[in-house]
């Protein structure tokens, strides 16, 4: 791996996740201007103390809270639905919607074709016909998300799928992050139309005590 400067690293990190808040710590005041050119939110000059670092952390927190919320909201408490700018996305295929629900349930983890088929068609043999069915469902999901203008929430590889958690808000993820408002919205149901979701429901209930 070739060596990077702090500024080059900052640029690379911003390309990976532009919501990341960057704070530079340096002994050289001359780096201040280049740091802000890569959208750093703060700059700490050495020697620093706890108060100085805390001030920058508080600033990062304020900026994060003031940032516009994601256009995409996924509701898992109760019936599963996905909303873009407050409007529910319509799925022409129930299985495509269920595939998205599985990916949401996995919290960005990778779901292989075989794993998805086992859940979507639990009593069917894993053969060519069911694989073709899965490919059709995957295409339907891809088309639905594209029509809704949210293709970027889906990450596709040849035989696996996952969702990009950074591109959406989800009540379940908010609960896992310990956000108090998410607890208020949970009323004992999680994707109740899908039997496989009962495992996660039990985990949520155990978490909430």
């Amino acid at each position, binding site marked *: 791996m070739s060596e990077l400067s702090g500024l080059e690293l900052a640029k690379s990190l911003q390309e990976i996740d532009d919501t990341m808040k960057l704070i530079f*710590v340096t002994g050289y005041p001359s780096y201040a201007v280049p740091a802000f050119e890569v959208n750093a939110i703060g700059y700490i000059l050495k020697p620093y103390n706890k108060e100085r670092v805390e001030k920058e952390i508080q600033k*990062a927190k304020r900026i994060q809270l003031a940032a516009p919320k994601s256009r995409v909201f996924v509701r898992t408490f109760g019936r599963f639905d996905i909303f873009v700018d407050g409007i529910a996305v319509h799925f022409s295929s129930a299985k495509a919607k269920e595939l998205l629900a599985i990916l949401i349930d996995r919290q960005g983890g990778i779901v292989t074709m075989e794993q998805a088929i086992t859940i979507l068609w639990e009593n069917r043999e894993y053969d060519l016909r069911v694989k073709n069915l899965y490919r059709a469902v995957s295409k339907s999901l891809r088309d639905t998300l594209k029509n809704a203008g949210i293709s970027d929430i889906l990450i596709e590889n040849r035989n696996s799928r996952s969702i990009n958690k950074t591109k959406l808000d989800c009540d379940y993820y908010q609960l896992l992050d310990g956000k108090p408002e998410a607890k208020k919205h949970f009323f004992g149901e999680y994707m109740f139309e899908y039997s496989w979701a009962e495992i996660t429901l039990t985990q949520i209930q155990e978490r909430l005590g």
Partner: protein
Amino acid sequence: MKVMIVDDEPIAVESLALVCSEIPDIDEINCLLMSMTH
């Protein structure tokens, strides 16, 4: 809040991590030591 500290000097990473550990808003600290140009 999650914090990631990146530097090429172990002492710099360690001392900043120590300061961050005392800040209540920070609940996760990740450290990365990497070779960097100056």
